[in-house]
């Protein structure tokens, strides 16, 4: 069974600007091992979302190659799930309806479709809110529905672009636990963009740091630590890395 091996080789992306093409992503190489959890961190505008949108099949590369399990990525596919910062739930469907949307392509019988969608909502502790519309849910609940919906489609790769940036600190901690649990159960390959160094260190097996725009990956840390993690309990490993990353992200901090 193929399992979510992402290879991005010398990928570059340009957008048409007013004064000619703008480089949004300098040639970047990134390989994601099947079932790994990689955090991507970098200054604003360095191209993190652009890289993610390329792997999701939303934008076409200017150069280089991208493959998933040795098949070229040419457009969006249910093998590559995406969690958006703005949730992207369909407001005209209930929470349950949103999850069912992801399951439709499997052509299940009605009862099974319903049961599987309910089970997916149960996984994110939202079964009792199944009949609510997104407009009736809090930010954290919306993102939980989005996570349930995306996992329901059975992706091999999961791309998350600052998924918890809009949530308050406490909700974010809840979401970290929930994501870790679900991910350990489903084992998709995760690429997780964040601005929050601590979030990256708590969640990921690997943290990639990008440079200022046009970005490329300048540092790659492997984190082989058990979960659940805590900055305090694993301070001897995590804090030095944390300091390094913060320095990398603010190279001109002294003169700012």
């Amino acid at each position, binding site marked *: 069974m193929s399992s979510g091996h992402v290879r991005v080789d010398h990928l570059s992306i340009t957008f048409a600007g007013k004064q000619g093409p703008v480089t949004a992503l300098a040639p970047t190489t990134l390989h994601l091992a099947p079932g790994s959890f990689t955090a991507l961190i970098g200054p604003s505008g360095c191209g993190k979302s652009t890289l993610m949108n390329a792997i999701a099949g*939303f934008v076409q590369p200017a150069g280089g190659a991208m493959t998933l399990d040795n098949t070229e990525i040419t457009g969006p*596919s*249910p093998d590559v799930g995406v969690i958006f910062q703005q949730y992207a739930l369909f407001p*005209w469907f209930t929470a349950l309806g949103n999850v069912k949307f992801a399951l439709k392509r499997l052509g299940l019988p009605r009862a099974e479709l319903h049961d599987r969608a309910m089970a997916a909502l149960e996984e994110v502790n939202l079964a009792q809110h199944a009949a609510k519309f997104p407009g009736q849910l809090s930010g954290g609940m919306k993102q939980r529905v989005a996570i349930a919906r995306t996992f329901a489609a059975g992706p091999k790769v999961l791309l998350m672009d600052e998924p918890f940036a809009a949530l308050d600190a406490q909700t974010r901690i809840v979401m970290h636990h929930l994501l870790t649990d679900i991910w350990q159960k489903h084992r998709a390959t995760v690429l997780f963009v964040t601005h929050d160094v601590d979030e990256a260190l708590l969640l990921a097996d690997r943290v990639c740091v990008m440079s200022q725009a046009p970005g490329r990956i300048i540092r790659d840390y492997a984190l082989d630590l058990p979960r659940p993690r805590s900055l305090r309990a694993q301070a001897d490993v995590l804090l030095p890395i944390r300091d390094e990353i913060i320095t990398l992200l603010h190279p001109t901090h002294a003169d700012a």
Partner: protein
Amino acid sequence: MADVPQPRRVRPKLAMGLAGATGLGRPLLSFGFILTLWIAVTGAGLVPEQIFPSPLSVWQATVEMAANGTLATDLAVSMRRAAIGFGIGSVLGVTLGLLTGRVALVRALLNPFLTLLRPIPAIALVPVAIVWFGIGEGSKYFVVSYTVFLTVWFNTHHGMEYIPDIYLRASRSLGASRMREFLTVVIPAAAPHIVAGLRLGVALAFLSLVAAELSGASSGLGHRLQEARQYIRTDRMFALLIILGALGATVDLIVQWVGRKLVHWQQG
């Protein structure tokens, strides 16, 4: 600075009372005010009754038209024309709007032309309609459905253009086919604009219908208005105008209510 207590703005008593009037209170207050003004002006005898009739004679004219049966027939005829014209125009408008919004070829072929048609007022079309369809029902359906069509098309198309990209991205990466995306993502996403277009269409249906009935019809509220002009019956004219206003407002309220049920997720 944030700790400094802001002085509380105290609203004058009258304004509070007015703002507090909710539901039926506010329109009733406004109608009462205008009616009083109307009674005062006509009661003072400043304007001849035949030019500017009093509320009482307008009421009597209404009763008269109701009693001789013309009111019911005119209402029925006009409503039927507006409804049929609206039905044809809105179905065509939504269908074509979805097509020009979705299919690049259809958009390229039709949009510039339809955009050019939009500024032409409905009234300007009446003579053409009469030549093509005579003064019977055909020309009314044509004028009404044409006006409704253009507005509904425009709003539908506009709604299709402003569908947030993120919905389409989410839909595609969840493996939806193009058909399922169209039916369960694109149409609902454009629905608020479509509903707004239909609401405008209803208002325009009445507008263009009366325009068509004023010149070249043998029945309907617009025709009755024109007839009242020949006999200089301003009391009847006023009665008909008020009925048209009430009718339009009622239908608009209904459409608004239905629209809110249809796009229940849309706030504000």
